[in-house]
């Protein structure tokens, strides 16, 4: 079974999306030029989600990737809801009041977000009322709190993450008279999702990360070469600080059972996540909710299974770590991607490939022999590789697609090998997940003229 190059392209490009920040008077005053995003499923259906939106009542743009596990319900919910929670957290008191008054009196609501969605990125119609009510409760609380202080983006991000996770948990505990919705909120709560969200406002870039997706800044050095600056911490067993944190939060007696086989309680790869109430609720609460829940939930072995050595919940949090970065002229782009990308490619290669793609082939550094000892054969190999890279650049109009092509198709020499690409993409559904993970990528391009 063999895919032709056009077939490969149609698979790779099925989910690609590009957004260009509109210009006014021929000028783009935003620090963001636009973004390219794409995702390639390995799970069926895909468990990754992505979101992008412009804040309309405050300045700034929000972009995020969400990696779901144990189903896609939680990732889907987070992708729909989290940006509203963030936007609301950022709103000044007066705007919140205005919005609340509008809702109260049945007037038209000020729009909060302008979404930039691919047709495949859907929102749940059924749950919108439920989600809205939860959100409204949140802003009502914020109005009541009225700290009077100007909103700090870091605080807002942390609050929004925690509040949404809390709402997910509560909604599952309370349930819903509508059986479809009841089942939905339970699925959301019992599945999980990581989130890596960027908030860009002028030169202020905030990354809020929960879990093992990653934000990477592409920096162009003076000599034109590319370097990668990581703007997030992975929340997994490879992060010593994170392991340390988990251990600190639980009694010493559990030290050995907390992290096993690089997984939380021997089960969960990310150490922070939305949902996953199995790692947050007490055993009693879990049993009560499952018993009173619908049959489908009862039949699900996974949900019924209580993690071993489950003594002092919660073991898991959705609280993000936030990194603030002031954008510099050399900061050309930001890549947000789920771990499906980072486990196949080194961050340095990722940044170089995107950098060379965005600056165009013509800016490719010329090769100079200089004083080096290079043989004809070596030079030939080098040139062949560069040609292959260029030809694959020409196929893609989207930086994220281009990156996925490399992530899936790269051979040992770092060049896209069509045969490999074809094989990887034609794997049957049941096998795909064994060779690769869902990959979701957003590449945000910064506007050097403004920064």
């Amino acid at each position, binding site marked *: 079974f063999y895919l032709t190059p056009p077939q490969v392209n149609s698979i790779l490009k099925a989910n690609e999306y590009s957004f260009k920040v509109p210009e006014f008077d021929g000028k783009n005053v935003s620090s963001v030029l636009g973004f390219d995003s794409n995702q390639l499923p390995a799970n069926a259906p895909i468990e990754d989600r992505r979101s992008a939106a412009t804040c309309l009542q405050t300045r700034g743009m929000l972009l995020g990737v969400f990696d779901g596990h144990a189903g896609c319900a939680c990732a889907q919910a987070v992708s729909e809801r989290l940006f509203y929670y963030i936007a609301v957290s950022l709103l000044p008191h007066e705007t919140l009041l205005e919005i609340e008054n509008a809702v109260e009196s049945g007037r038209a609501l000020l729009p909060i977000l302008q979404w930039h969605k691919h047709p495949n990125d859907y929102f749940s119609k059924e749950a919108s009322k439920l989600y809205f009510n939860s959100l409204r409760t949140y802003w009502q609380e914020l109005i009541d709190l009225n700290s009077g202080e100007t909103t700090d983006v870091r605080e807002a991000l942390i609050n929004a993450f925690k509040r949404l996770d809390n709402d997910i948990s509560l909604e599952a505990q309370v349930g819903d008279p509508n059986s479809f919705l009841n089942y939905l909120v339970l699925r959301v709560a019992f599945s999980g999702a990581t989130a890596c969200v960027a908030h860009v406002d002028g030169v202020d870039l905030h990354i809020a990360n929960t879990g093992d997706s990653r934000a990477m800044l592409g920096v162009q050095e003076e000599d034109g070469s590319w370097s990668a600056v990581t703007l997030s911490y992975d929340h997994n067993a490879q992060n010593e600080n994170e392991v340390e944190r988990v251990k600190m939060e639980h009694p010493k007696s559990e030290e050995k059972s907390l992290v096993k086989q690089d997984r939380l309680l021997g089960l969960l790869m990310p150490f922070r996540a939305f949902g996953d109430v199995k790692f947050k609720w007490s055993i009693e609460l879990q049993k009560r909710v499952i018993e009173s829940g619908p049959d489908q939930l009862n039949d699900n072995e996974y949900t019924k299974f209580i993690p071993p050595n489950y003594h002092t919940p919660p073991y898991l949090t959705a609280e993000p770590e936030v990194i603030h970065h002031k954008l510099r002229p050399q900061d050309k782009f930001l890549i947000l991607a789920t771990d499906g990308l980072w486990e196949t490619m080194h961050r340095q290669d990722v940044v170089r490939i995107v950098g060379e793609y965005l600056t165009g082939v013509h800016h*490719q550094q*010329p*090769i*100079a*022999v200089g004083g080096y*000892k*290079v*043989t*004809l*054969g070596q*030079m*030939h190999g*080098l*040139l*062949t590789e*560069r*040609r292959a890279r260029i030809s694959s650049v020409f196929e893609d109009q989207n930086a994220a697609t281009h990156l996925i092509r490399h992530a899936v198709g790269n051979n040992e020499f770092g060049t896209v090998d069509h045969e490999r690409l074809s094989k990887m993409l034609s794997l049957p559904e049941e096998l795909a997940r064994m060779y690769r993970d869902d990959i979701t990528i957003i590449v945000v391009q910064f506007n050097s003229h403004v920064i």
Partner: protein
Amino acid sequence: AAGMFLRLLSDVQWRAANPKWRGVTSSRRSTSTTAEPHPVSLPAQAQVVICGGGITGTSVAYHLSKMGWKDIVLIEQGRLAAGSTRFCAGIVSTARPLSIELKMAHYSNKLYQQLEQETGVQTGYTKTGSISLAQTQDRLISLKRIAASLNVTGIPCEIITPKQAVQLHPLINIHDLVGAMYVPEDALVSSANVSLALATAASRNGVQIHERTSVSHVTVQRGRVTGVETDRGRIQCQYFVNCAGQWAYELGHSGEEPVHIPLHACEHFYLLTHPLKEPLSSSLPTVVDPDGRIYIRNWQGGILSGGFEKNPKPLFTEGRNQLEIQNLQEDWDHFGPLLSSLLRRMPGLEALQIMQLVNCPEAFTADMRCIMGESPTARGYFVLAGMNSAGISYGGGAGKYLAEWIVNGYPSENVWPLDLKRFGTLQSSRTFLRHRVMEVMPLMYDLKVPRWDFQTGRQLRTSPLYDRLDAQGARWMEKHGFERVKYFVPPGSDLLDLDHSKTFYKPDWFDIVGAEVKCCKEAVCVIDMSSFTKFEISSTGDEALESLQYLFSNDLDVPVGHVVHTGMLNEKGGYENDCSIARLSKRSFFMISPTDQQVHCWTWLKNHLPDDSNLTLEDVTWKYTALNLIGPRAVDVLSELSYAPMTAEHFPSLFCKEMSVGYANGIRVMSITHTGEPGFVLYIPIEYALHVYNEVMNMGQKYGIRNAGYYALRSLRIEKFFAFWGQDLDAFTTPMECGREFQVKLDKGMEFVGQEALLEQKQNGVCKRFTMFILEDHDTDMDVWPWWGEPIFRNGRYVGKTTSSAYSYTLERHVCLGFVHNFDEKTGEELVVTTDFINQGEYEIDIAGQRFQAKAKLYPFSSLFTQRRRKDEVELSGYQRE
């Protein structure tokens, strides 16, 4: 770095060998503070000023001084041999498709070989030989054609098998080869040193050389060069020679009266490596792999390899910029495909270490041939430039021909294919040149099958009927910028990709052209021949007639309305032009010449006509559209359209009359067809062109009229033994040698140019004779077709080359035209060729190495096909031009 080393080395030798040299650099080098602050000043005047110290400039200086001219100044803006010459790969290759190019390269090779002995300057001359490889059968055919040409010129050359090739050069991978050509006497030189050696010899002969001196412009007064302005002062001179290489175009445009030199630079890359573990022998032959687009020579134990890529990088389009040649970037990505090709050809070189990728811009011309000769607008302004990266191969010979041209007024060989006057202002657009050289550079190594055309820079000059003809399936070729129809693809024909199926064998258009020819023979065809050069010469008194009688060999004092075929001859009786002249009135003449004569003929007339205000010469080429109606029914079509009797009694052959055709009046109708077939050419003022064409086509329908193209015309004229100028006839051919004595009126009562030479030939006989050959055992379907340039053998001995050939649909045989010489068996001297000599020989034509029997004829089969029209003359001279 290698280049620099070479350069330093040559400097040392230069100084040692030439203490007399008065250059700038010597004084610059001086450490003494009392040394003169300025270099030796320029002379106030000189006979010749040469601009450019590369291989061409030094070669011209060398040859001029050898011919006894001493008052010569050579000016170089930088250092001698520091431009393209310095970077040149140094390959002297004689395997050239064009006969004149081959002769130049052959002479260069012989010159360089003895140069070191003559001058004491080491030239690095090594006779290595060269191997040209063929990856395809078609390539092998093209090599065989060149080999045949080399052999009859006296250059040893053989077609060898791949196995023999690997014996000559053990590194060659031969698995994909079908054959090769070996030229054992090809050589390698250090091109910069050759140039310095020529400069040294010239300097000893009295030529003054000034480096670091720039020419700002050339001054011209009353159409003659008067001097040169430089950054170090003015030099008055009679002759200026533009040898400025890739800057020649700009230099040509710097003066008030621009000289158009259509060339444009492209980057050219080659690779230098460190020596192999076991250094390559300096006698290892150069390998040319045209299918792989590369050449490979040995270089200091390693290799030097470059090529002509498919996607060249033109540069300096907007003129010279700040970028020095020396600072051009290496571009490995661009070189990549050539490197692949090199490693495919010589896989053993994988581990060889790279030294440098050299980027050396070269000047390419609009038609891939170099440019030499005198400016049509400024007498004394000579040009030698645009060597298409073969400067070292051509430099010696080209310099010799140009020196002869300056000293004697004409070179010793026919250099028309290289003459500056083959171009006009129309090839001078920068955009055109940029696009054209991007096609020319890859063409250097592309397989060129018969009748290839340039694809860029097209549709520049067109007939008003272009769109009409194109819509009817016309396939086009180009001459002097003018689009001309080759043939018409019939509607519904699935031969739409005809242009892609070019071959050395029977072409796809064979039947199409056959049908057009048949229609010309049996009914009537119309061919748009608007591209011909058309002049009008008139005067208030008899000046026009008198001047023309002096310039043309035939008698032009004919009754008004008569058309005369005549040569425009030079002093030696050779054809400078071949034309038809119609006497429109007592005092005005209408002259039709080949398309590419537009500049040459104009210049010749301007230079030879008396400076008389009563005499006017006008180029009316653009004013008339020419439709050639060929065939027995042409007379019917025309008489129906004009309500005038057109039969032979009323409108004899070689007659011209202004009449109305359809609604249009003032159409010049001439009873000539340039083919020997009956018919008329209509010269139509362009605004009437479409109307007349439509009328002719409508009226012609009932007579079976159809469109036809030049291929049909070509077949018709060749089977009628019509020679045409530029192909069969040139400045070294006289009417006596091509059976046209009847067009020469030695007794017309007044002197004319070339008369003396012709009288002498009439008395002594001719040394070559234009002959027609009918191929006997040639299988049209299976054998390689003749084209032109094929060697002719008489009784097994070489006697000349064909000049044109075509398939005759009437004879159902191939017909070749060519010249037969009688070379003395021992001395090679040219002896008189008599009719008996021609008739008493057994002839063979060599087509790509295979000989075919041919029957020689001195007279056409005309009596079979045409009836006499006018008692005294038959239309027995075509001058169809391709």
